[in-house]
Structures are given as C-alpha cells and as structure tokens.
C-alpha cells in the first residue's frame, strides 16, 4: 500500500490539453473519487496513474517513487475496467490468478489468494465458470477479485458500475465500500455519477475541462462548494442559481432577487458579504431542500415569499416543486402533505442560513 502524488501533471493530444497541470496528493489507505462530466480528463488522469497513457509533463509518484517511465506491470497497481475486461477463455479462477501465474507465484499461494478473494466477494461458487456464464454484477465482482488477489499498492477503478442497472449499481457500490473497509488499499475511483462519488469517497476530486475544480470530503463539497461548477454538479436536484444584487436598506444588508422579492440577510451572512461592491453582478445559490413550504414558526434567517408553481413532482417522501423567479427556473423540495399542486399558488420559505453567493462573471463562491 502506498500514497500517490500527482505533480503538475499534463496530458496533451497534439494541440489539445486533456489534463492541464493537476496537483493531487492521495494518502495511504485513502479512497479518492475523481468525478466530472465526460471529457473532463478524469479517465485520462486514471490511465496516466495506471501507466496506460504517457504523461506529457509533470510527475506521478507512487509510494514516493517517480513512476513516469515505469511500465504498468512494474507500478504494482490493479485496475478494474468499465466493461470488466475479463479474459473470455479463462474460468473465474484463471482470470483472477492470471497476474500471479505470470509472476510465477507458488501454486499453493495462488490458490490461497484466489480462495480468499472469492470468499471476500462471495463468488466462491462461481470459481469454475467462464465469464459468459456470469451476470453483469458477478463479472464485476470477478474483475474486482482479479485486482484484489494481486494485493497491489493502488486500486484503480474506471467507471466500474456504469454498465450495471440502477439497482445493481447501488448494491455493488456498497460491496466496493465493504471491500475497501476490509483491504484498506489506496483507491482511485473514476465516475461521472456524483452520487457514487459522494457515497464512496473519503475525498472527492471534482474535475472540469482538464482542471481540478475542488478537492474535499463529500460534506465539504456539498456544503462549501468553491465554484459554481462544483455547486451545480454535486447534489441532485442541482442547486438553484438566481441572479441577484446586494442593497443597503436602513442599515441592514438586503439581497434583491426580483422587483418584488428582497430578503434581509441573517447577521452572519451580512457580515460575510458586507465588503462586497454593491455593483457586482451576483448569483444566489440555494439548494432545493432549503426552499420548502412555509411554517407558522420560522427560524431566524428563513424568509418567505409567494409564487405560483409550474410543475410538481411527487417523489413519495417529498414533492419537488418547480416555479420561475424572473424567468429563472427554480426547484424546491416540500413536504408531500403541503398541498403543492401544478399551477397553484404557494408560499415558500427560503433558508438564507444555507445560501451561497457567487460572482456571476467568475463563478467563484464568495
């Protein structure tokens, strides 16, 4: 097991920079998830760590050693691919032991390791089957088994659950987490699914256009996003962004959303935003769960306003309500018993204690 460091790593394809000088320190035993939209460079980064892609510039270190020019087989890593990449002509046991057999491990040790990994992944009964006789979930377990038996320094996962159906994906997500809790191998996991990222990671790395937007624990990313991209990418339904401006009214700081709607900021927020120039174009970022139905007893910092709902989506445990603020579509989450109906007026409450204020031009969260 080992830590992994990326220092100013760049990947260029002809004139296009797929990865633009990223820095990342991954601690021993850590589970890191690289997440971002397709084309953001996350898979390329993973493949560079694996050694399947050359790096154009910078350094990659595994366990303190620079591995820029070390071939994949000597990096002591194991990789799980999206389409499993099992050898179709080999049985499950042969698939799992292939790497060990190439390295001429003693037969007894190979058998022991395969048995142990199969037990860990609950595939002991499948050990003599060929991949085509297995379901998608079973194949993915075998692919993980192939990685585990090698006992590598680092596990690399390249969108391993994308080929599975939704239900199986949730199951396998939990399996992966369990396996990591047992083997504690440093793991780099790539996905475009922010739910996978949030649920699995010790720390999430959000990537966009070849750069790292933010690194943090799932909670940090959710509650303290650094940029508009991260704020909008993490969380489902996504955070709402409403154009707004700051106003001084009678000694207190107000945020104006529309001609009719303006709220006085809670003291903590007012202190934080007071120094901002009043002329800046700003965005109010507010998550749907902080836009709820109004109560009789509202906490300080929660402000109400009236609107007409466009569409409602009953989800069972909550109802999503959609409406417009000055032409900007907004989503809120209300209690299913709050009486929200398509086209009906409703009084909503906005929790300004959990608001974010962004600079519209730079996208930075202030």
């Amino acid at each position, binding site marked *: 097991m080992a830590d992994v460091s990326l220092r100013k790593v760049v990947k260029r394809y002809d004139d296009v920079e797929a990865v633009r000088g990223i820095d990342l320190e991954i601690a021993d035993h850590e589970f890191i998830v690289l997440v971002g939209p397709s084309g953001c460079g996350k898979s390329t980064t993973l493949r560079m760590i*694996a*050694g*399947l892609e050359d790096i154009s510039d910078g350094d990659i270190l595994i366990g303190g050693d620079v591995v820029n020019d070390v*071939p*994949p*087989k000597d990096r002591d*890593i*194991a*990789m799980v*691919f*999206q*389409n499993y*990449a*099992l*050898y*179709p*002509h080999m049985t499950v046991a042969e698939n799992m032991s*292939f*790497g060990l057999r*190439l*390295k001429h491990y003693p037969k007894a040790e190979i058998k022991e390791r395969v048995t142990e990994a199969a037990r860990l992944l609950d595939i002991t009964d499948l050990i003599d089957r060929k991949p085509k006789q297995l379901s998608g979930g079973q194949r993915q377990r075998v692919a993980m088994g*192939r990685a585990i038996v*090698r006992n590598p320094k680092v596990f690399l996962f390249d969108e391993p659950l994308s080929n599975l159906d939704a239900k199986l994906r949730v199951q396998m997500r939990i399996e992966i987490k369990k396996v990591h809790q047992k083997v504690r191998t440093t793991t780099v996991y790539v996905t475009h699914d922010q739910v996978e990222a949030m649920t699995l990671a010790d720390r999430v790395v959000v990537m966009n256009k070849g750069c790292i937007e933010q690194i943090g624990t799932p909670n940090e990313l959710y509650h303290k996003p650094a940029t508009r991209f991260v704020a909008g990418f993490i969380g489902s339904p996504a955070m709402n962004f409403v154009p707004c401006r700051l106003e001084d009214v009678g000694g207190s700081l107000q945020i104006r959303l529309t001609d009719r709607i303006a709220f006085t900021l809670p003291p903590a927020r007012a202190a934080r935003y007071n120094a901002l120039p009043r002329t800046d174009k700003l965005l109010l970022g507010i998550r749907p769960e902080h836009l709820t139905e109004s109560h009789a007893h509202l906490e300080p910092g929660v402000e109400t306003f009236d609107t007409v709902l466009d569409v409602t989506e009953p989800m069972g445990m909550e109802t999503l309500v959609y409406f417009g603020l000055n032409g900007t579509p907004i989503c809120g989450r209300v209690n299913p018993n709050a009486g929200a109906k398509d086209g009906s007026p409703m009084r909503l409450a906005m929790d300004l204690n959990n608001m974010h204020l962004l600079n519209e031009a730079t996208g930075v969260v202030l």
Partner: protein
Amino acid sequence: MSTIAIDKAGPRRKVKYGSMSRDRAWALRWSYFFLVVFVIFSLTPPIYMLITSLKSSAEISAATNPWWVFHPTLSNYVELLTSNQFLRFFWNSAMVSIVVVIVTMLISVPAAFALARMKFWGSATLATGVFLTYLIPDSLLFIPLFKMFALIQDLTGITLLNRWYVLLFVYPTLTVPFCTWIMIGYFASIPKELDEAAIIDGASWLQTLTRIFIPVALPGLIAATIFAFTVSWAQFLYPLVFTTSIDQLVLPVGITTTLIKGDVFNWGQIMTGALLGAAPPLIIYAFLMDYYIAGLTAGATKG
C-alpha cells in the same frame, strides 16, 4: 382451440394477420429453391468424377450411359495408390502445404497483432498495403519471381528452381497477406481493455498475444489456417512454372503432367487422382467448418 374457432366464425377483416411469417415462409421457399439449384450445380462434377473413377478405361470410352457404372472397379484407385509417382506428388503437396501453413501463421499472426494493436507510425497504411499486395494476381508475379530465383541461383549457387521447396518461398506471397488481413480484423474486434488488463496483470506483448489474443481469436486463426492450406494445396500456376522434374511435382501439376500424354487422357486415373487430391481439404473443412464460418463472419462484421 375454441378461440381459434370463434375467430374463424367472426367477420372477415382485410387486415393481413401474420404477414411477417407469410413473408418468411416465401423467403424460405426461395432460399431452398436456390440452395437446391446450387447444390446440383456444385455437386454434379464431383459425382461425375466419382462415377468415372469407378469405371475401367474401356467402359469410359464405350457409348453407354455416362451417369451409371455397369462394371464397377477399383483398379484406378489401386493403380494410383500403388504408384510411387502419385504417392510422391501427394507427399510433396502435403509437405509444401503443411510447412506453408506453419510459416504463414508464424508470420501473419504476429504481424496482424502488431498492425492491429501496437499503434506505430504508418501502421494503418501498412495494414492497407498488406491487403493490396494480395490483390496483385499471381499470373503477373510468376515471371518476376522466376527471374528473381534464377538470379539468386546465379549469384549464390543455391539451387531453388525445379525443387519442391522453392514453393515454400513462393506460396507465402499469396497466403501471408490474406491471413494477416483476416487476423487484423479479428484482433481489432477484441476490446482494447482486454490487452490493457493483461498489461496491468504483468503480461508482455508476446504473452498478451499467446495467452490472450490467440485463444480468444481461435476461430479466426482456424479460418486463416484453412485458407492457407487450401490455397497451398490447390495452387497450380506457381508449381507448374517453378518445378518441372517428375519427382519435384505437387499433386495438381503431377496429375495433369503424367496422366495426360499429348492428346491421350487417362480419364479414369485423372478423376481418381483429382478425387483423392480433394480429400484432405474436404476432411479438414468437415472438422473445422463451424469455426471457419464463425471466423469469416466475425472478421467481416467487426473488422
């Protein structure tokens, strides 16, 4: 049953039920019709050969029904199979074909792997070039090749012309390009992740080829093998040009050279020889047919 009866009793509607299956039925009838025509067309010559091979020379030249054997005899078979000459041709053919198949596979499988997987500068152009060489007909090539071997003989003193083993150098010019092409298509259809997984597992290129690619692409490999064998076994022009002494001839040339004397055709033995000569490819086809078809179609659609 009852529901069907009610349907029949009900009002007639113009909607065509089961038009799909009716179309299928017609398609099937046409397919069978053309298949039968094709079978008659292609099986008539070998059946005629078999009938003729069982006749004596006297019966062949007699004005009887050519499609029936009145006095069956195995004399043609006995004569051919006890003649050293014929067995020599057979032996030469077998040697040439087997060695050519081995040489072809040893060259074209690694070549195809390199062209399909190790992306190097010009690999795509080279792959197309390999196929283009296959398109040059052998009737254009035999004179330059002959000149080349004559030159080598003059310069080095190594005799290649009029030796059966010269064919070991000539036949691969036909088999290697096509087999490489088939294998490129087949290897290209193997997902890229499979070799990446092998590389991460610690396999070298050679190990990836021998332990992953060859087993996975086995149907394609067998298709290529059958092709190489058939081409070598049936080749006529090159052995006709490059070998002349009786003891150096291969089967197709041997039969026509020794059994046709001027305008005298020994039909019974010619037919017997041709039939015996067709046996080895037939046996190989019969055993490997399923693999052969799988190999050809996979190469065709995914290549």
